[in-house]
C-alpha cells in the first residue's frame, strides 16, 4: 500500500487550506506531464488547462475532510482524474478517444480509477450550483452581502463599510436576515 510521504502529506494539508505556495508547487510539478498527455490525446491548450484545474479542484475537495487518505502519489492521482475527466468529455462530445499513449504510472484500473471521488465531486458541484442559483434569486443587497462574506472572505467590518451600515453589528443582523431568506429559498428549491 502506498503511503504519502511526509512532505506530500504536508503539501496536501497546505493545499486544503488554499495555500498559494503549495498549490503552485503541485501545479508546476504535475501540469506539464498531464498537459502533454492531454495534448497527445486530442485536447487543445485551453481544454488541457481546464481539465487539469478541474482535477485540482477534485483533489482540493477530497483533502478537505480531515481523515482523507490518498492511496497513491499526488501526481498519479491527478493524472488518473484528468484522464477520467477527459474521457468523459470526449464521450459527451461523441468523439472517440485517441490512442492511449503513456499508461505508465497507472494503477491496474488506470482510467476508471477514483470513480467514487468523481461522483462525490459531481454531487458537490451540483449542490454548489443549486446554492448559487438560490443566491442569484434572493436579490440585493443580500446576494452581494453573502457573496462578500462567504465568497470573498471579507470581514463584517469591511462589509459594514462597503455596504454603508453604521456598524458591523447592523451588518451582521442583515446577514442573518439574508441567511434566513436563503435557507427558505434553498430548501424549497431542493425539495422540488
Amino acid at each position: 500500500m502506498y503511503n504519502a510521504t511526509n512532505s506530500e502529506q504536508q503539501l496536501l494539508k497546505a493545499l486544503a487550506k488554499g495555500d498559494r505556495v503549495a498549490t503552485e508547487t503541485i501545479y508546476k510539478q504535475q501540469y506539464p506531464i498531464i498537459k502533454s498527455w492531454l495534448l497527445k490525446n486530442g485536447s487543445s491548450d485551453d481544454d488541457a488547462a481546464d481539465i487539469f484545474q478541474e482535477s485540482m479542484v477534485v483533489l482540493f475537495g477530497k483533502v478537505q475532510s480531515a481523515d482523507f487518505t490518498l492511496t497513491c502519489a499526488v501526481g498519479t492521482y491527478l493524472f488518473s482524474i484528468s484522464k477520467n475527466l477527459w474521457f468523459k468529455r470526449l464521450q459527451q462530445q461523441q468523439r472517440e478517444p485517441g490512442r492511449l499513449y503513456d499508461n505508465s504510472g497507472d494503477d491496474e484500473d488506470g482510467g476508471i480509477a477514483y470513480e467514487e471521488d468523481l461522483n462525490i465531486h459531481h454531487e458537490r458541484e451540483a449542490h454548489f450550483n443549486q446554492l448559487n442559483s438560490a443566491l442569484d434569486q434572493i436579490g440585493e443587497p443580500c446576494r452581494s452581502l453573502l457573496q462578500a462574506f462567504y465568497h470573498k472572505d471579507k470581514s463584517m467590518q469591511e462589509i459594514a463599510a462597503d455596504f454603508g451600515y453604521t456598524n458591523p453589528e447592523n451588518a451582521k443582523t442583515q446577514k442573518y436576515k439574508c441567511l434566513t431568506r436563503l435557507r427558505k429559498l434553498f430548501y424549497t428549491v431542493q425539495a422540488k
Partner: protein
Amino acid sequence: MNTNNVWELAEAYLAGTLTAAQDAELRSRKETDEVFAAEFNDSINLINSLHGAGKQKRFRNMLQDIQLQQAKPKRIINFTPAFWRTAAVAATVALVTSLINYSIINGSAKRNNADYTVISKQVNAIANNQKNLNKIVQDSLLNKKPVAPPSDVRRTGTGVALTNDGYFVTAYHVINDGNGDGDSVYIQANDGAYYKAFMVNYNVESDLAILKVEKKNFQFNKGEVPYTFVGTKAALGAQVYTVGYPKDDVVYSEGYVSSRNGYHGNKNQYTLELPAGHGQSGSPLVDAHGNILGILTAIGKAGESNTYAVGSEEVIDLIDNMPAGKKIKLPKGNKLGRLGREDQISRMENYTFSVKVYKK
C-alpha cells in the same frame, strides 16, 4: 448571546465557541423541539455549504491565476540599457571581424606573408576579444551579475546561509506575505550578483522558510559556514547582535535577550531589546560566541525597541523535516568562538545577504 437567534447559535456551534451550558441547552432543545432541530440542522448545512462553495471559488480563482502566470513566456531576458553597450561592442566587433575576413579572402591572391600573419593575429586577437565579449554578455545574461529580476521589488529581507552550497533560512513572511502572491525570490550576494532561489521547506507558524539557490555548484563563499545553530535557550540578559539588510548595505545592531519567551508568551521565540527595522526579517540572532540563537522575525510597537526572534530550535526542526532527497547537514564546528566581534561580523557578512522578492 441571544440564543433565540438560530444563526448566532449555528455560527458559534461551528466555531466551537459554545460554552458547555449553552451546548447542553442546545442539545435538550433539539431533542424536545423538532421544528427547531430541523431548522438548526438546515442552518448548519447552509453555512457549511456557503463556506465550502466560497473556499472552492477562491481556489478556482487562484488556479486560474497560476495558469495565467504559467502561460506567460517562461523567460524574458530584459535587454536593459546596461547591456546595450556590451552588445553594441560585440556587434561592432563581429562586423569588423567579418570585414577583415573579407579583406583576407579578397586580398589572398597578392598577399604578403608578413602582412598575413599580422592580420591573422589581429583577427585572432579580435576573435578572442569577441569571444570574451560574447562570454561577458552571456555571463551577465545567463549566469551571473544583475540578471535584472523581473520587475519591481516587493519585499526585502535578510537570509542566513545554512550550508555553503546554497541552502539558507529566512522568515516565511518575506517569501509569502499571506496575500497569496507566488513571487520570484532572488538573493543579492555580497559580490552584488543576483541569484534566483526556490523554497524547499517552510513553517507558517514559526514563520521560517528554507530556500536554496537555484544555480548549480553555487557557493556562498569559500569554505563551510563558520557558525553553528544552537537550539538551547540563551540566558536572560545574554548579549546578542545581528547583521541584516534594512538597506543595500549590511547593518549591525546589538542588544540583549530581554525575555525568554516571545510575543504573547510564545515559547519558541525570544524577546529582545534590539533595534531592528524592516528588511531585517530573517537576520541571524548571534550571541557573543558566534552561535546563532535564532532568526529575527518581527518588531514590537513603534516607540519600543522590542524585537522578536524565532529560536534556532525551530530552524533545526525544519531541517530535520526536510522533504525526501533534500537533506541538509549543518556544520558542527563553530569557527567564530575565539574571534573578536569585528572579526566575527566580517566572517558573518559573507554568509548573510539580502533576500529580494519580486512580482512575477
